[in-house]
């Protein structure tokens, strides 16, 4: 016994000896079967021969880690579901994508931008950022040096967006946003601070836009990847590519103080100010510019996808956000429980959609037209909130799925599924594609026989249900 204790103290490298000693001193070892002996040796080597592999932290490992201790913080999101979310949201690196202007000349489309509602303390955001190549600060030595070089010569802080935006969208001049930023130009440009300011949330493509219910987004998980939301380091890719705005700024920006433009001071006035006050002035201006930029951009819509993992009512979330997704864009909604998503799928059911279309495009064409315009603007018919909380024609092929990875033990002759694993929330994913419905009544076709039977029944009625071929 003492020998063993001594060997333990001796530290590294003595594990094998300890095991040999223990095995030698075990009296009943001869009574063990071959299997139990193997098990015993394995147990002992696990105890005394500590070996480990150092692997870099990544999203998968972080998920495992948090799931063990505080699963509720991340909505019990498992890696299998995380994989599904990343696939179905079609998230990918959009650094080389183009932001294009839609036909109406105001909305924008594409550019590798995803809209996110994240109540998983930033885990979903981290996973998406990983897939977009934004999560990890540039690592290799030569790379970091170039990053510094790159940021150092950046001269003008705020005025940059204007020319850049025009460049990206050559054909149409951006309406209001540009005008505003350019007016602020003359004041900010001459008083360029010594320390170059890199505008936060200023990237145009390959971005994530987070909508959060509080003043600040809860993105605690990002701190494991070198990004502190409170004090983000400008060299981290997320600094420019992660945008956040509150529900308030999106839905009623006029009530959000950070959206209201602070008073613009002339150069002379600034000259006469105390330096601390001047600093404050710039800080306020920049905050306003940031908020305005993000809010205006978000309102112009055209996101490539929408990812929702929230404990809020998903129907309300989708009502506001689905219209901001581009045609053909993907919508993925995660919830740890199935019920909210079942309700959501029901809002897009075939019958409900048929009823919605019948209601919208029923008899009075004039009235209908007006109503659709309204509906387009709000994403739903305002007076039909209860029956149609969401415009059911905006999403195609809504479906609900789940997946679970079942672990196996693989040993020669002893291969079987693990005897135990974790229960808890199953986790479900709602997926759909944003589409642009044709205005007016659309007659489906395809169910030849069924249709005949139906029309035979309903011919006298004007409101005969419109059959939609895409089954829910």
């Amino acid at each position, binding site marked *: 016994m003492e020998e063993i204790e001594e060997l333990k103290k001796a530290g590294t490298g003595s594990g094998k000896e300890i095991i040999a000693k223990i095995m030698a001193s075990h009296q009943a070892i001869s009574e063990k079967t071959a299997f139990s002996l193997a098990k015993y040796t394995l147990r002992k080597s696990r105890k005394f021969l500590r070996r480990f*592999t150092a*692997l870099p932290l990544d999203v*998968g490992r972080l998920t495992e880690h948090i799931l063990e201790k505080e699963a509720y913080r991340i909505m019990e999101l498992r*890696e299998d579901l*995380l994989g*599904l979310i*990343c*696939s179905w949201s*079609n998230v*990918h*690196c959009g650094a*080389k994508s*183009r932001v*294009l202007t839609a*036909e109406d000349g105001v909305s924008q489309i594409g550019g590798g931008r995803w809209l996110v509602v994240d109540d998983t303390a930033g885990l979903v955001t981290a996973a998406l950022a990983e*897939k*977009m190549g934004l999560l990890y600060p540039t690592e290799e030595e030569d790379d970091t040096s*170039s990053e510094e*070089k*790159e*940021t150092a*010569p*950046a*001269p*003008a802080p705020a005025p*940059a967006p204007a*020319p*850049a935006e025009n460049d990206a969208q050559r054909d149409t001049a951006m309406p209001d946003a540009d005008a505003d930023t350019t007016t602020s130009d003359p004041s900010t440009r001459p008083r360029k601070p010594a320390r170059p300011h890199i505008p936060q949330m*200023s990237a*145009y493509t390959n971005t994530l836009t987070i909508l959060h219910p509080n003043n600040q987004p809860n993105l605690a998980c990002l701190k494991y990847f070198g990004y502190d939301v409170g004090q983000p380091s400008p060299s981290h890719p997320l600094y420019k590519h992660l945008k956040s705005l509150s529900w308030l700024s999106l839905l009623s920006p006029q009530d959000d103080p950070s959206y209201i433009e602070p008073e613009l001071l002339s150069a002379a006035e600034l000259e006469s100010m105390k330096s601390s006050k001047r600093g404050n002035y710039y800080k306020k201006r920049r905050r306003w510019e940031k908020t305005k930029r993000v809010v205006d951009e978000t309102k112009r819509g055209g996101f490539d996808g929408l990812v929702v993992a929230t404990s809020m009512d998903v129907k309300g979330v989708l009502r506001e956000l689905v219209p901001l997704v581009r*045609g053909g864009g993907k919508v993925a909604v995660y919830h740890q429980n*199935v019920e909210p998503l079942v309700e959501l799928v*029901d809002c897009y*059911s075939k*019958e*409900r959609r*048929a*009823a919605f279309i019948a209601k919208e495009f029923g008899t009075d064409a004039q009235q209908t037209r007006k109503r659709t315009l309204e509906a387009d603007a709000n994403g739903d018919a305002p007076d039909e909130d209860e*029956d149609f909380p969401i415009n059911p024609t905006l999403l195609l092929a809504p*479906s*609900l*799925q789940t*997946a*679970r*990875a*079942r672990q*196996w033990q693989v040993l020669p002759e002893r*291969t079987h599924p693990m005897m135990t694993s974790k229960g808890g929330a199953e986790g479900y994913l709602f997926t759909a*594609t944003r*589409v642009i419905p*044709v205005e007016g009544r659309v*007659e489906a*076709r*395809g169910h*030849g026989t069924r249709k005949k039977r139906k029309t035979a*029944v309903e011919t006298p*009625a004007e409101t005969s249900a419109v059959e939609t*071929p*895409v089954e*829910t």
Partner: protein
Amino acid sequence: MAPVISPFLDPGTHSAAHSLGIVQLRRDHLIPAVLAPNGDSDYAEGKVENTRFGSFPHSTLVDQPWGTQVLASVVDTGSRGKSKKRKRDGKDEGAETPTTDATETKKDIVKAATASSGFAHLIPPTPETWTLSLPHRTQVVYTPDYSYILQRLRVRPGDHLIEAGAGSGSFTHAAVRCVYNGAPGMEDTSYAAADMEEELNAIGTVPKKRKHKTRYGGVYSFEYHEPRAKQLQHEIVEHGLDPVVTVTHRDVYGDGFNLNDNTSPEADAVFLDLPAPWQALKHLTRTPPSAATVQAVSSDPSTPAESSQQAMGKPFVSPLNPRKAIRICTFSPCIEQVTKTVAALRTLGWLEIDMVEIQAKRLEVRRERVGLAEEGLRGGNASAATVQEAVQRLRDVEGRAAAFHSQQKEKQEDIMRRAEARKKGRKGENGDGEGSVKKEKKTPIGKEGLPPSKHDRLDKAKKDLETRALYKEGRLIHRTEPELKTHTSYLVFAVLPRQWTAEDEEKARKKYV
């Protein structure tokens, strides 16, 4: 507009000619179509996609905003080109869209007329939609599997991935999405996407330098079967993914994973969808494996253990990225394959070996309507919803039966009475008149008080249907969809840590201490 790399990666606002679009008819019924409005075709409208939901000429699909609901067109599917046969043999047309095709007489492409019914949605391709619609050549790796695999393999933009056993290419497309971060040659056109404004301001040296260093992601796809390899290559080019994917026709068991010019793909992750992955593993090492390990790995007598490395006489080049830990996943349907693979992985020094199986299911959501009001309607269960309803129905039935019986009885009595009256009639006229008056009075009263007959109930149910909102009635339920994939394959994951030499140690010490 800048040239597009691929509709998979950056679809733009509208569908474009000569690039892939997906026509979605139902959730699992999608048609991939390389849009060719001027394509050669027998139809007057040019190339047409004919479906049971209508015909969609490509000219109506090109240059549409993605996600548009496209209405079907009237296409003469029966008579093609010059032959002026009757078109009654067209499957879909005939019945619903009577002859309006008088317009199409010219040889050049006719503007398609919108049909009275039928529509589809035009959506940009994604690996998911492609997986649902691709032409099957082999077993397909479906979305739940590949999404989990790519998540576990930690494939990120800029990584290189080896895929062996490319098969139908569903995994290839998903992998491209993960590794893609641009491609050489496309910077000139689309780099100016206003990505970073300070770069725009500091035009010149900085961006150029950056570009040089960027490691572009790539998928290195190997396929043993030559026609399949060719077909995949063709698809990859058609989809505009050729800058990212390298397809090689190769027997990886014998010849390994280096490219044809023996350069290394420098892979960060490996996915093997092979019948015998353990035979390929000997090529996935950092240093040439000793003959003994090779022997041990392929100890199975049924597999020929030839040491290909010596036979080729080429210097050893590892296909792996020397600076990173390599993650591998093998995809095998049978448990025997798994045991062999795991044994080989252990011999070759792979760590964190883990085997899982993905159990995915889709749920259907619907409303289950139960109640006597559903009688005779489709989609409802017409049994009693509650005890009260059952009791009421039984009462009704009993009431009707009683009424019926009493009626019968009365009729019987009536007949009897008449018979008696007839007998009596010969003697006096009174009885007959009395009986008829009684009968006339009786019948209407009975009908009114009577519970509704089955016929009445059905009529009422039908009438009520017009005012009911079925979409919010009944109980909302969910259940697994009828078709269930209970087993796809076993997934074996493992990690090969990077080699750590004394030099690396020294370097790290200098940097961090």
